């Protein structure tokens, strides 16, 4: 289980964005997180993804308290949590073709040898053709780039996945495709998912239960 208890965090001293937040993400379950813009949904995702150190409370991963955030967090903890951001264009290196974007986490963790096979398998599942994999980000649509970002988030086989407004920039058909890949992972592999969205209709059909901030 990925969880925080009594967590407080903010960006400026004395101005907490979140205060006293509890949240559990259980393996194989999908928690929807709803709330209006600016209520701290993405901040909560950053804490759970170990990108932001909480002021109070700590992140617990499968029964173990995680110490540190970003590069100070232990590698096994960091690679256990995947993150998909809202804006795919801001989340990729514009100089890399899609197949390298997807393979980056493998290279960074010394698993380059398994890259070709893993990338090919994941690309097919998220609906990217081999031809699209060779293209640069500016040569594909937002939806196609977000498919690559989802593949990248799944490439290390994380136990938890945080989807921070993953579908806000893409059309209805791509939304349905991306969500069905994530649901498959949850059902078949026991991936625990935090689905952050302002779209309650989408969360209603995607998440097992929905909490509001």
């Amino acid at each position, binding site marked *: 289980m990925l969880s925080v208890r009594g967590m407080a965090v903010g960006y400026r001293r004395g101005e907490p964005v979140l205060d006293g937040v509890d949240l559990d993400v259980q393996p194989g379950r999908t928690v929807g997180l709803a709330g*209006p*813009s*600016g209520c701290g949904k993405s901040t909560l995702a950053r804490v759970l993804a170990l990108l932001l150190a909480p002021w109070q409370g700590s992140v617990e991963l499968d029964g173990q308290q995680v110490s540190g955030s970003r590069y100070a967090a232990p590698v096994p903890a960091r690679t256990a949590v995947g993150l998909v951001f*809202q*804006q795919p264009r801001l989340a990729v290196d514009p100089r890399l073709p899609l197949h390298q974007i997807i393979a980056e986490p493998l290279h960074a963790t010394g698993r380059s040898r398994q890259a070709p096979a893993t990338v090919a398998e994941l690309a097919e599942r998220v*609906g990217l*053709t081999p031809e*699209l994999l060779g293209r640069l980000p500016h040569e594909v*649509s*937002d*939806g*196609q780039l977000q498919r690559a970002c989802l593949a990248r988030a799944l490439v290390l086989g994380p136990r938890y996945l945080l989807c921070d407004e993953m579908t*806000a*920039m*893409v*059309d*209805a*058909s*791509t*939304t*349905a*495709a991306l*969500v*069905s890949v994530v649901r498959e992972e949850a059902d078949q592999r026991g991936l625990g998912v935090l689905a952050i969205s*302002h*779209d*309650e*209709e*989408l969360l*209603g*059909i*995607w998440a097992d239960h929905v909490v509001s901030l």
Partner: protein
Amino acid sequence: MTGVDAVTGAAPAAARAAAGPGGPAPVLDVQGLSVRFLLGRGGRRGIVAAVTDVGFALRPGRVLVLVGESGCGKSVLASALLGLLPANAQVRGRALLTVPGLPERDLLAAPERELATQVRGRVIGLVPQSAASHLTPVRTAGAQLAEAVRTLRSGAAVNALVTGLAERVSLPIDALQRFPHELSGGMAQRVTVALALAGDPAVVLADEPTIGLDRPLVDRTVDLLARLASDEGRAVLLITHDLRAARRVATDVAVMYASRLVEVGPADAVFSDPRHPYTAGLLGALPSGGFRPVPGHPPELTALPAGCGFRPRCPVFGDGGCSNDPALVRCGDRFVACRRPPC
């Protein structure tokens, strides 16, 4: 609408689609619009077919929503109407602008000077995709509005007009004193709508004005645009990939796929009973419609298949009766680019 059929031999079906259902005479009548981008010198590195043979009409008091996946050519269409395409674009077709008090003109043939001094801002207002990148970061919202009013309405009482504009878009007066970065996303988007209205345009083009906004803000923004049509009698073209926003405010809808319109008609009819398999696929991908993605990918605009661009993904192709003809034909209350029975 008379005389439409006599217009372009090149695109009779699209021209007929422009005639559309009845209603007031169109202020903007687009016929057989095609846009090609030449890549490399003289198109040696390929040709992008961004818009192909598109026709529609914008009428006062009505909201036409143009829906389609990202990259299908929707935004290029808006840029073409405003004369904002880059130099490597080739445009064909006609876009007749008929506004009371002004001579009829073809926007696609008008010189840049005429578009700049008589059309953009004055007859056609643009609501852009991203307020953050459209507004000047170093000046307050009020200063930008005042500048637009001074430029577009000579001799007007600037302050009164600016507060009037702010009121019409429900922008609090104190927000006028703020800089764009001090405004929330929804407020900033309202400033851009006010800017689009500064010249009192008869036509409002909104190009993905709600992308990345949350649902209540999307609803507020599109409701505001719909009121420009229903209460103020403007003609509104809303370009979006957000079907739920489209369904909320559209009076008419045009579905675009791979550079062509595939279905055009009254919004109620198209949304409740889609005739083109692509329209049906899009609606079926909504959480409320079954949440099934349309399989496959849209074709590249540099290498469109001959005939119907949707055929490689079409779930009903193979059932027979597919003529692979991408032209729109009348089918009851609408126009559809698919020859399946009963059309």
